[in-house]
């Protein structure tokens, strides 16, 4: 999260700019064209990254000991001897059907793997988001309302530390102190081994699954494990959200209608929460949507430290095991999520923001 910096907001793909003018039909067409061009670009980029990787997918399947004949046969089977353009067309055709091939390391279709590991990341990121938003917005408002006082400085330093600390390092320290030392939180991993096979998985989100089936002992176990990685991820998100909230609030607080409201005798807190805050709500939704996407990035490193069987760990393992199909599938998926979130926040922005309507 921290590496994403405030760039997240300001660099949201400017689909809006192409959306903003023109009639509805033209707008829609333009958006479709622009999104499809971006997706095609994603495909090109991932394909060439895949070709450039100095990892040998054939060896990854056959093992270190294989004979040259077996090697050549596998090259043929994988279609790696075909001309590059043909391989690319195959790749595009298959990707459009969400067929990213078979993972070399799990022997299952990549898309199946991703769907299996994704809920773990989703649960972690969502909880982090709830914590990060719940803390970040009030802190940002507080800082703006008390601009340049010690409160503002305090919020600034606390949140900037959230930006600045390497997330994997916080994870290691957190585990050492809160799990090994104090025993306040559960072990690395998503669920206790003894519980793993008693839990009926419906949504894939273990907190919800255990709650709806009434297994409160499992719920407690799952919660004790998720709370630390989620808090650490949330710290980064909180930092970002509180900085952006402060900035939006400052803008509102300097507006004339606020000054007018104050002059009419509205109390300070009612001006802040009833007059200014609703006006930044739309902007905040965009920020939250974007930082949600960036949590995926934080997840790559956090999941490594916390043995979290999610998307980030799947991607890093695939990278280290030369599992090209899985790496490309994951990269494509992250790209798609980014594009979708950006598009959604653009649309949302257009629909609800008075200035763009």
């Amino acid at each position, binding site marked *: 999260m921290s590496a994403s910096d405030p760039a997240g907001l300001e660099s949201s793909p400017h689909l809006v700019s192409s959306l903003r003018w023109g009639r509805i039909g033209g707008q829609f067409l333009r958006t479709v064209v622009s999104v499809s061009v971006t997706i095609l670009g994603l495909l090109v980029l991932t394909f060439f990254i895949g070709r450039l990787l100095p990892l040998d997918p054939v*060896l990854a399947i056959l093992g270190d000991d294989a004979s040259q004949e077996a090697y050549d046969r596998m090259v043929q089977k994988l279609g790696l001897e075909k001309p590059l353009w043909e391989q690319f067309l195959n790749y595009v055709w298959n990707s459009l059907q969400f067929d990213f091939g078979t993972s070399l390391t*799990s022997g299952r279709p990549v898309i199946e793997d991703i769907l299996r590991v994704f809920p773990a990341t989703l649960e972690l990121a969502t909880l982090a988001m709830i914590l990060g938003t719940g803390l970040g917005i009030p802190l940002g408002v507080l800082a703006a309302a008390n601009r340049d006082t010690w409160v503002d400085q305090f919020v600034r330093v606390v949140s900037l530390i959230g930006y600045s600390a390497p997330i994997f390092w916080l994870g290691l320290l957190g585990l050492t102190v809160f799990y090994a030392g104090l025993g306040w939180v559960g072990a690395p991993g998503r669920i206790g081994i003894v519980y793993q096979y008693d839990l009926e998985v419906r949504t894939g989100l273990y907190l919800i699954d255990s709650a709806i089936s009434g297994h409160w002992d499992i719920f407690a176990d799952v919660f004790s494990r998720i709370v630390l990685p989620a808090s650490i991820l949330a710290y980064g998100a909180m930092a970002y959200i509180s900085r952006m909230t402060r900035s939006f609030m400052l803008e509102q607080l300097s507006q004339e209608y606020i000054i007018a409201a104050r002059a009419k005798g509205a109390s300070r807190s009612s001006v802040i929460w009833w007059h200014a805050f609703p006006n930044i709500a739309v902007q905040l939704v965009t920020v939250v949507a974007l930082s949600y996407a960036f949590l995926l990035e934080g997840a790559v490193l956090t999941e490594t430290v916390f043995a979290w*069987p999610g998307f980030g760990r799947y991607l890093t393992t695939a990278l280290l095991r030369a599992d090209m199909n899985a790496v490309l599938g994951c990269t494509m998926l992250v790209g798609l999520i980014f594009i979708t979130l950006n598009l959604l926040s653009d649309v949302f922005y257009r629909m609800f923001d008075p200035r763009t309507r």
Partner: protein
Amino acid sequence: MNRFWNFAGCVAVAAFVGAPTALAETPTDTLIMARNIDAISTFDPAQIGEVVTNEIVLNICDSLVEIDPEDEAAVVPSIAKDWTVSDDGLKITFNLVEGAAFPSGNPVTASDVAWSLQRVLTLGFGNAATLTEYGFTAENAETDFVAIDDATFEMNLSRPYPVMLILQAIAANRVANVLDSKYLMDKEVDGDLGNKYLTTQSACVGPYALRQWNAGEVVILEANENYYGPAPKMNRIIIRHVAEAQAQRLLLEQGDIDVARDLGAEDLRDLNENPDIEVVSAPMHQLYYMGFNNADPKFADDRVRLAFKYLMDYDAMSETVMAFLGMPRASVVPLGALGALDEAEGQPFSLDLDKAKALLTEAGYGDGFSARLFIGTLPYASPIAQHVQENAAQVGIDLEIEQMANAQLFSAFRGREFDTVMLSWQTAVPHAHGMLSRHAVNPDNSAEASLTMFPTWRASWFSEDFNRRIDEALFERDEAKQIEMYKQIQRDHMQKGPFAYSFQLLDTAALSKAVTTWKWNAFRAYYSDVEKD
């Protein structure tokens, strides 16, 4: 900075004081083991190449025979209840046990045995080398592996190899895992002989059966209720993926697991002092070594390669970085194998910069040179490489380390695209021939031959003399004489061979006190013998 120090101090204190919470307990009928199982990619015995999967598959799929749990140099019956050898030593006849049945209900027959072995050659994965090494080929598979009747299986050899070696190398190996041929042919896709089905499932008979594998998460084995042999003691074996050694240690200390398999030297040192935990190790027939590309004239000089053997402080490393993980070994044959040099003679080297410098000067490289050193991601790879790097720098050799994913490392080594490399090699037989057949023999050094399964070929190292002597030693019937021949080969290999061996690796595990019996040797662990309180 003060705040940081206070905080850091808290971390340290907290880490050493330990957890105040009550210890968890694992179920008594279940063994829970933490291990890094990222390497698992299939359960097809014809394709498995990793140590982790090998151990699991040997516990779920019985082979013709099995390495004796009590004596790793001997074999005991498994699917084959006994066997006879023809007078010319070219035919081994196995009589199979009665009443063994696969989970599908199909009886275990000799044709399953023949099919399983032929299949390894037909599919041609890396494991086919285990068979081709002893003269079996895909073309002759049908006449070499023959089902005489349901209960009699015949193996025809092309040369009179020592029978014990064949039993260890093939009959006890995963290539002789007996698979359910009828069932798998039903599951066949595109002529793959069930390879796709076996990626995530098993179709064989053993004390345990594979119940579930979630890549990067867990492997669950369950006791096979219809097993023909003695029933295993644990009902379930759960192998949980925990990549971090630190996390494994914490889980073990907190009582969340019974066995931790991938601990680091420092953690093992601490755990060894803990009365609630037992640290056990078994020397594997696996050597950590440095390889040199002999296509480079520098490394083609015997003296240059020899000089590198004087660039490591073996004792200091084995007490620090490699404590509990390896013992110094310079001979190509691991301790414990038939024909191995004894401990002292098998490790005559020590850190001696003057000697190294003298050898380099003699070879014409007194001014040193620079070379790249490729290493993998094992935790000890980096410190060992840096240790050698520093000593090499003192004799003028500038080594540039490049650490890479293991897949990439193997790819560079196989492709002959390296200067020097550090990695390990494991053999599946407790016999000098196991290592020598790959680390001293190179049938054809030409690029076209592409004998990529021979590390000698990868290192572009070829010696007619070693090829001949190893063949002669293999067929020497007088065992005393044979051992003497092997010893001389090792002495010469130590001076002229393509590789600098540094450590014989140990398989080390930490067990919670609940585990009362844990049986293993150099080649596998026996899950069915595990006992817990």
